[in-house]
């Protein structure tokens, strides 16, 4: 296997004196599709924030494409990893196509703005995510599911090899959850995007992700295919619930 797309080595994070991540080692290969699961407070979001450079760990290191994160400029990180936010509150009315176009910010000319290549990437992203019909609508007037797709399209327009998502299905009904998961799988399998997503829903994670990383109290306690990482015993010990409730 060629080098990792992203790697955490012995990452420790303390927030307000509390250890949130305790020596996390994780390597994600190019083209992988990885779900991060774990109970509330396990450190999933913190791990993501370290991975994308918005949180600096107290100890340990992070590599992107085998380059230390500290040595990369902000822009350079933004050209490697696109982060899909959970939700965005826009202060003003804004067309869907204009929101998607914000994904080009790391690429566009800092002063002159987007060029033809940027406009083409935006059009392609809108097409890829299937938002053509909505491109001219006000992004604030969309349903939660449509909004999530807009944010994913923005990340696709960012043209990175890795997409990172923090609970992309959290406010969605079942049909939209599946729609988002299908899209992520497709972006991974057809376009070769590396995908790392924090998920709450274990059934969804097990069904759509070939690799599951289970975090508990700041440590990785399991890492492997769903059958291995999400066995009944693990669900019982980590999440403290009857595995039958997860419905596998």
């Amino acid at each position, binding site marked *: 296997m060629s080098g990792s797309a992203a790697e955490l080595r012995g990452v420790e994070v303390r927030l307000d004196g509390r250890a949130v991540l305790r020596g996390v080692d994780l390597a994600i290969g190019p083209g992988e599709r990885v779900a991060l699961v774990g109970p509330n407070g396990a450190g999933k979001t913190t791990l993501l924030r370290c991975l*994308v450079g*918005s949180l600096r760990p107290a100890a340990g290191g992070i590599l992107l494409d085998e380059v230390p994160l500290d040595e990369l*400029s*902000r*822009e*350079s*990180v*933004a*050209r490697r*990893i*696109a*982060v899909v*936010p959970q939700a*965005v*509150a*826009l*202060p*003003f*009315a*804004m*067309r869907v196509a*204009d929101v998607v176009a*914000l*994904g080009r*910010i*790391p690429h*566009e000319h*800092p*002063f002159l*703005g987007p060029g033809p290549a940027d*406009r083409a990437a935006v*059009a392609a992203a809108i097409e890829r995510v299937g938002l053509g019909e909505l491109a*001219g609508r*006000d992004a604030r007037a969309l349903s939660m599911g449509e909004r999530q797709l807009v944010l994913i399209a923005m990340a696709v327009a*960012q043209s990175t090899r890795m997409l990172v998502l923090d609970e992309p299905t959290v406010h969605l009904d079942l049909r939209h959850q599946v729609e988002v998961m299908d899209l992520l799988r497709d972006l991974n399998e057809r376009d070769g995007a590396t995908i790392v997503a924090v998920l709450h829903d274990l059934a969804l994670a097990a069904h759509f992700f070939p690799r599951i990383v289970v975090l508990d109290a700041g440590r990785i306690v399991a890492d492997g295919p769903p059958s291995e990482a999400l066995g009944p015993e693990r669900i019982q010990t980590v999440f403290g619930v009857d595995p039958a409730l997860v419905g596998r």
Partner: protein
Amino acid sequence: MNAEVVPSLAHAPAAVRAERGSARLALLVLAGIGLLVLALVAGVGLGNVALDPGTTVALLAHRLLGWPVAPTWAPTSETIVLELRLPRVLTAMAVGAALSLAGTTFQGLLRNPLADPYVLGTASGAALGAAIAVLLPVRLFVLGLGVIHGLAFIGALGAVALVYRLSRASSLGSLTGLLLTGYAVGSLLAAGLALTLYLSGAHLRQIVFYLLGGFGTVSWPHLVAALPLIALGGAVLLLRARSLNALLLGEEAAAHLGIDVTRERALLLATAALLTAAAVAVSGLIGFVGLVVPHVTRLLVGPNARLVLPLGALYGGAFLAFADLVARIPGELPVGIITAVVGAPFFLALIRRARAGYEL
């Protein structure tokens, strides 16, 4: 043959939409420039000594562009136009542009549609500075600019600097912290202003007149002092439009797009404060322009700062020049009254339209 036709049809809607969009944009820019020219000709030509538009244009072309036309106007008209009306109209335009640019920036930066150039204490700071200047026994004038302009400028900038410093120490989310600190500092400065007014005695009228805002006493030195600052501020903002766009998504998402949020926020804040201070120093407190013009512009072109900043500056400049014209016809009303009387109903109408599904 079908194979050739189908792809071109498939691409037609997007291409047509893009073309229609840029045609519309060109029209909006031309409309802005047209309004500006109209405001210039009307503002310079109308008044107690009225000139017809043809003469006004000929005079301006002759004196400013060296157009070779024989003067058909009285020398006094030329003096009135060049020494009184032209600096006044141009200053109103510069101040309108500055307030619109600052308002756009504060609204975007604070992610708050209610923000205006005065939101972070600039108004109270400038007002307090001006009031203190009136009470000072010093009557120092440098090229027509007095202590009052200097202290108003310093007061406005100082207020924002103070708000920024204090808010950095707050544990609230940075935006809420900034807004609340702005409110607190503004209230404190307003109390200082109230005390100064109370103690001002015979000077009260002079202070209040300055605070109401206007261009009645404006001359070339005012424009010469303010214009470089406004041009510099406008240029900086235009060059940072990308950061302002990224901040539409919020600070964390902007950081994920590669923006150094802390640095950009400080830079944008300082620049918007500079623009506001320059505007307030020469013309006092003029409301509504910095709040309404950015919104109107956004309703026309969407929130992309690359469009809203320059177009808003055009519209703001034209709007304030027209408002000043209306203000001086009945004999020097404070221009802030006109901007509010014209601006508020217009704004209300826009909001109603927006609620009825106004499409961007």
